[in-house]
């Protein structure tokens, strides 16, 4: 129980208008919550409030009533006794007459109206009393917007929930609502008001009811809002958009047929205005009205409607008909919103009442159109008016035909015959008979206008059948007259289209375009009821396919035909046309796939592949066929190459692999079973390579090797583990007997490695690279046979400079021991062992002993690899190979988070020192490789060790490495070093910095910025490191645009500006200059006092950049100069 004095206090606070709104809110909440948890009863509250509710002080009474109303508003779900509700309704209803306290009364009524069913609701009688009081006492338009809105909402509630009680009020209610809405301008109120009209129309639907007598008055009140003029772009609170209002108005207008005599003339008048928005609104609203008012009422307006619609079509259609590749599946001219709405209105009218079509067919000047069509054979040659005529009328006819079967029949009966006549398909003989031209005598009268009209009509009927297909499974349109007409003429029509395709001259694509579009339309009639028989369909396919395979080169015709075939293919796949799919398969797919075998057609091979892959990607079955075809083609090409030495075939092979990688691999997820096919392809690649013993001539197909590696890697990457295993097994069996196997037994000693000067044969090289790509892409769960000797093999190849081998090795150390079982079970090689082999080089001593009989000299306790890297022995070439290889191994270790990477990093750093443990500096080229090794370590690689190839990636590995290596590099740079080694250390640091996420840099800007700046100045000395310089500069610009970085930039401003000024004239890379100038602009964010002193220096430097040889730099320089010049009040001081 709330203490009485506390309640009094709350009441006092709320009623006192001098208190702050938050205090009032708090007291309201307190009262509401104590009512809600039953510590206060409503009776008590009212007893306590008595004085406030009845006082003669207007302000206090208004606040008191509002308090009671607000409290009730927050108790909508709390059950109250019916008696209490009744009393409260009575009270608030009475108070509606008290205009000084109206707000509270409205809120209270609304709160009671909105009560939940279970909690006690207002009875019909009370509601009626409330409505009466409302109608008698409240003058809505005299109130403030918020009160008006409440009033409208109250009326809305009454109409919605107590429609029966309201209907007895009759004319009184209609009149009151008329009065309430009249002159309303607030959008929030209007939305509710429009809904009110809709509700009113539902309440009094009868044509002799109260609404009927007042319909004209009511329409006058709200019809004047049309078309809605609303300029608020964003209304902050309510967020009402123009579309919502327009929709509400449209619903109100179309709410009852009683408005028809007033609405339709108004809408037609607005439709003829020049304002686009009015046109769109009228069309939308007319469509709603047509649906709601019914055919009978609309009928008398058909004349006006049709002429308005026709005008709209003429004014909204352009005269441009596109003959481009993109428009083959679209109407070919632009459609704006007005046009779209007009189309849908026309369709709705025709669909609703076929007699509307009478107006259409009677009115449009079909005769003149046919005259126009037969006068100009070229579309280009027509004057604009005729073009418009043809386009609009074909549009109107096709839209009406699309509306319903009946309309389609009528349209076809009216003009299809004439059209055929014009096109020369039928001719009238002297005795009046209609003779269908035989196959042999299709006259080649090609009229673009006629073809266009014909295609539009066919497309409309096609869309009609497709529409049926979606709603009913077995459409029977064979009996329909349009269908029989099309059927009758289908043979000559196809001939006409085909002849249009072939008759084309070079200068006009229109013939070809229309021909192909016609064939495409004819080919897309669906289902068993299709007017185009199977043999005709096949003829279409044959025609299109023959265009593709003819030796015409990549012309517009070729592209159009290909696109048409692809469209037909995807149409068949979408509608599951089994019959047609069989035809498509046998005519198009088989034909094209067989042509994928090179040498079978005169077309350039890449084009052939493009066509085949495009066509086949329309259905899963075709893809299967395609992969098999490609496999066969690959095998035959490759064997052709090594048997006959045909270089063309090896080129074809690389095209083929490229096609496979680009077109098919990305779609593995979509097509079931593609993965298996591709794996099969990979295995037969291996088979083929295995069977070609020796290449008959010098192999210089670098492109082929590249393509093969990519394809193989990607296939393995997407394959499942089992499939990967089978590919690996296959590959291993190919590697085993080759000379590569011999390399496995070469001991890892200097002497032995020195002897490795002899290069691998090209075949071995190919096999090695392919095998490496398989290993690179394999997932950790895949099993690698004989891993130890493979590691040895790769290690030896690494020393010979085969980068793929190094990458494979990196990939192996990355994934070893991380399979599903926790370790490679079949490989018999653990991570430890692998590292031992690589680093300790006491490689499988038992094998070595068995092969050589005696242990050879192994370089002390230091690892062989590190000694080679540091140049203790071996040639320079050897040294650089070892360093790069080490970097890839290091990358593998780094990504899995293995600690051994630290040793590698230290070794690489050692290579960079001017005086390392061997006491002398390395050769500059070796140092360069060591510095670039950091780029390999840190950057993301496309070719290996990424997610696609299942790399084991430890989170934040870059950050960890960064925090370890940067202090080391920094301290080395601080210490005295020779200029060369200093530069190389900077290069290494730049690689590390520019590859780590920016946030890490931002956290350490204070420390890093000086290093970055020094690096920039060291690297800018010559052009060798320009790319590194650029990436480092990008890091700097990243720090300058961030608030954290700006703090430290403030301290280093003078060095930064000096450095950037120097870079604005860096001659070797344009983007460096550009970025440097942009950075200078970014520096203007620093405090004025800090940058002002550098103004002259910067402006002088920028003046030079104005004369930069590159346009983009000049542009940036102008912006920069203006920005810097404007930091003072005076102008540029030159």
């Amino acid at each position, binding site marked *: 129980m709330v203490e009485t004095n506390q309640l009094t206090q709350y009441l006092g606070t709320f009623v006192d208008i001098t208190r702050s709104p938050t205090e009032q809110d708090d007291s309201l909440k307190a009262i509401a919550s104590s009512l809600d948890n039953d510590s206060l009863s409503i009776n008590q509250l009212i007893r306590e409030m008595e004085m406030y509710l009845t006082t003669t002080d207007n302000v206090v009474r208004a606040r008191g009533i509002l308090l009671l109303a607000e409290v009730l508003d927050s108790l909508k779900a709390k059950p109250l006794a019916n008696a209490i509700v009744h009393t409260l309704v009575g009270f608030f209803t009475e108070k509606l007459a008290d205009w000084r306290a109206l707000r509270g009364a409205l809120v209270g009524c609304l709160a009671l109206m909105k009560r939940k069913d279970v909690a006690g609701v207002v009875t019909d009688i009370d509601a009626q009393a409330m409505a009466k009081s409302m109608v008698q006492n409240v003058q809505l338009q005299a109130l403030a917007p918020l009160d008006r809105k409440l009033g409208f909402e109250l009326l809305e509630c009454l109409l919605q929930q107590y429609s029966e009680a309201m209907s007895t009020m009759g004319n009184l209610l209609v009149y009151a609502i008329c009065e309430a809405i009249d002159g309303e301008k607030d959008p929030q109120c209007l939305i509710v008001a429009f809904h009110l009209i809709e509700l009113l129309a539902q309440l009094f639907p009868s044509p002799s009811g109260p609404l009927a007598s007042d319909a004209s008055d009511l329409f006058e009140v709200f019809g004047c809002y049309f078309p809605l003029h609303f300029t608020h772009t964003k209304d902050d609170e309510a967020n009402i958009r123009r579309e919502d209002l327009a929709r509400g108005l449209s619903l109100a207008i179309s709410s009852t047929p009683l408005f028809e005599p007033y609405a339709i003339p108004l809408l037609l008048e607005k439709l003829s205005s020049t304002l686009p928005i009015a046109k769109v609104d009228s069309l939308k609203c007319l469509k709603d009205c047509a649906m709601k008012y019914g055919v009978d009422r609309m009928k008398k307006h058909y004349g006006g409607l049709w002429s308005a619609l026709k005008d709209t079509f003429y004014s909204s259609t352009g005269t441009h008909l596109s003959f481009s590749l993109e428009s083959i599946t679209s109407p070919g001219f632009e459609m704006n919103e007005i046009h779209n709405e007009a189309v849908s209105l026309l369709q709705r009218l025709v669909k609703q009442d076929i007699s509307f079509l009478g107006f259409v067919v009677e009115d449009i000047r079909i005769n003149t159109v046919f005259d126009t069509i037969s006068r100009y054979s070229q579309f280009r040659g027509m004057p604009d008016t005729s073009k418009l005529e043809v386009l609009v009328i074909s549009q109107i006819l096709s839209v009406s035909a699309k509306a319903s079967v009946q309309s389609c029949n009528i349209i076809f009966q009216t003009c299809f015959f004439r059209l055929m006549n014009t096109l020369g398909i039928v001719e009238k003989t002297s005795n009046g008979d209609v003779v269908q031209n035989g196959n042999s005598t299709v006259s080649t009268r090609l009229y673009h206008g006629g073809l266009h009209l014909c295609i539009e009509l066919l497309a409309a009927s096609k869309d009609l059948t497709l529409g049926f297909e979606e709603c009913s499974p077995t459409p029977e349109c064979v009996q329909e007259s349009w269908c029989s007409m099309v059927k009758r003429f289908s043979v000559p029509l196809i001939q006409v289209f085909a002849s249009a395709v072939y008759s084309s001259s070079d200068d006009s694509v229109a013939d070809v375009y229309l021909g192909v579009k016609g064939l495409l339309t004819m080919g897309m009639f669906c289902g068993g009821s299709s007017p185009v028989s199977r043999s005709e369909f096949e003829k279409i396919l044959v025609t299109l396919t023959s265009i593709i395979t003819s030796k015409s080169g990549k012309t517009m015709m070729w592209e159009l035909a290909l696109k048409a075939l692809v469209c037909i293919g995807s149409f068949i796949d979408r509608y599951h046309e089994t019959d047609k799919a069989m035809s498509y398969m046998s005519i198009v797919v088989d034909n094209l796939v067989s042509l994928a075998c090179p040498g079978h057609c005169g077309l350039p091979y890449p084009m052939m592949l493009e066509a085949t892959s495009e066509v086949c990607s329309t259905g899963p079955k075709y893809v299967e066929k395609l992969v098999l075809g490609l496999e066969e083609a690959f095998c035959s090409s490759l064997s052709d190459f090594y048997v006959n030495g045909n270089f063309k075939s090896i080129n074809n092979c690389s095209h083929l692999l490229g096609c496979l990688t680009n077109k098919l691999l990305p779609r593995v997820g979509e097509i079931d079973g593609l993965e298996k096919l591709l794996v099969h392809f990979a295995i037969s690649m291996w088979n083929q390579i295995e069977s070609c013993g020796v290449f008959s001539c010098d192999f210089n197909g670098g492109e082929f090797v590249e393509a093969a590696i990519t394809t193989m890697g990607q296939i393995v990457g997407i394959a499942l583990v089992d499939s990967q295993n089978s590919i690996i097994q296959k590959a291993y069996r190919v590697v085993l007997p080759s000379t590569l196997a011999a390399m496995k037994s070469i001991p890892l000693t200097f002497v032995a490695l020195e002897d490795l000067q002899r290069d691998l044969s090209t075949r071995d090289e190919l096999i090695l690279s392919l095998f490496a790509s398989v290993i690179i892409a394999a997932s950790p769960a895949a099993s690698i046979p004989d891993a130890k000797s493979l590691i040895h093999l790769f290690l030896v190849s690494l020393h010979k400079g085969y980068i793929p081998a190094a990458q494979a090795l990196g990939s192996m150390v990355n994934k070893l021991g991380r399979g599903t079982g926790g370790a490679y079970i079949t490989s018999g090689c653990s991570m430890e062992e692998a590292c031992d082999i690589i680093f300790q080089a006491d490689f499988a001593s038992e094998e070595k002993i068995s092969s050589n009989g005696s242990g050879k000299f192994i370089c002390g306790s230091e690892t062989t690899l590190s000694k080679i890297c540091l140049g203790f022995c071996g040639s320079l070439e050897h040294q650089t190979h070892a360093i790069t290889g080490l970097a890839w191994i290091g990358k593998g270790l780094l990504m899995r988070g293995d600690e051994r990477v630290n040793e590698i990093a230290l070794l690489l750093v050692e290579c960079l020192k001017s005086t390392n443990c061997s006491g002398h500096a390395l050769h500059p080229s070796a140092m360069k490789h060591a510095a670039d090794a950091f780029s390999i370590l840190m950057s993301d690689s496309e070719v290996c060790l990424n997610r696609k190839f299942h790399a084991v990636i430890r989170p934040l590995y870059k950050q960890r490495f960064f925090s370890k290596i940067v202090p080391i590099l920094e301290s080395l740079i601080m210490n005295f070093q020779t200029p060369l080694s200093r530069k190389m250390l900077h290069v290494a640091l730049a690689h590390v910095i520019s590859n780590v996420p920016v946030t890490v840099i931002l956290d350490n800007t204070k420390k890093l910025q000086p290093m970055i700046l020094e690096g920039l100045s060291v690297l800018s000395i010559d052009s060798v490191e320009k790319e590194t310089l650029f990436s480092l500069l990008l890091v700097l610009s990243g720090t300058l645009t961030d608030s954290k970085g700006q703090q430290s930039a403030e301290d280093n401003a003078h060095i930064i500006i000096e450095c950037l000024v120097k870079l604005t004239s860096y001659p070797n890379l344009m983007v460096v200059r550009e970025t440097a100038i942009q950075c200078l602009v970014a520096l203007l964010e620093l405090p004025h006092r800090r940058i002002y002193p550098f103004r002259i220096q910067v402006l002088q430097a920028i003046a030079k950049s104005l004369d930069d040889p590159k346009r*983009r730099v000049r542009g940036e320089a102008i912006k920069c100069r203006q920005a810097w010049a404007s930091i003072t009040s005076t102008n540029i001081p030159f």
Partner: protein
Amino acid sequence: MTLGLINANPVVQAKKERLVRTQEDQYRDDGVDPLDIYEYVRDIRDPEHPYTLEQLSVLSEESVTVDDKLDRILIKFTPTVQHCSMATIIGLCLRAKLNERLPLHYKVDILVSPGSHADEDSVNKQLNDKERVAAAMENPNLRQLVDECIFSDEI
């Protein structure tokens, strides 16, 4: 001195699309060409009207010629009316804007196109006399007017 506008009702043309240079040769220098200069000056606002010089057809692509070897730039502009007293202001704007955007070694000649102005010779003389230009730019009122015209597009 007549009050009001000199050309109260100028013909306004549509703004043309900005030139987009698609293929930039990475390895070749792109020298200053007439289109560059035109890009710089086309957006200068007319001193009288809220339109650019391009919109009023005072300037077009053909009005700029560049001699790259001698570092000379010649701009011929066409005032909207024969007796336009704003011609000198327009010329000053052109000179001021180009001064700001071009390196110092270019010599800029600004002329009214032959026959387009009643007092052609004296306008040309005035615009290409550097003492007189400098003096004009020191006049605070003129300077402000010129600055407004130049920077109207950028603010």
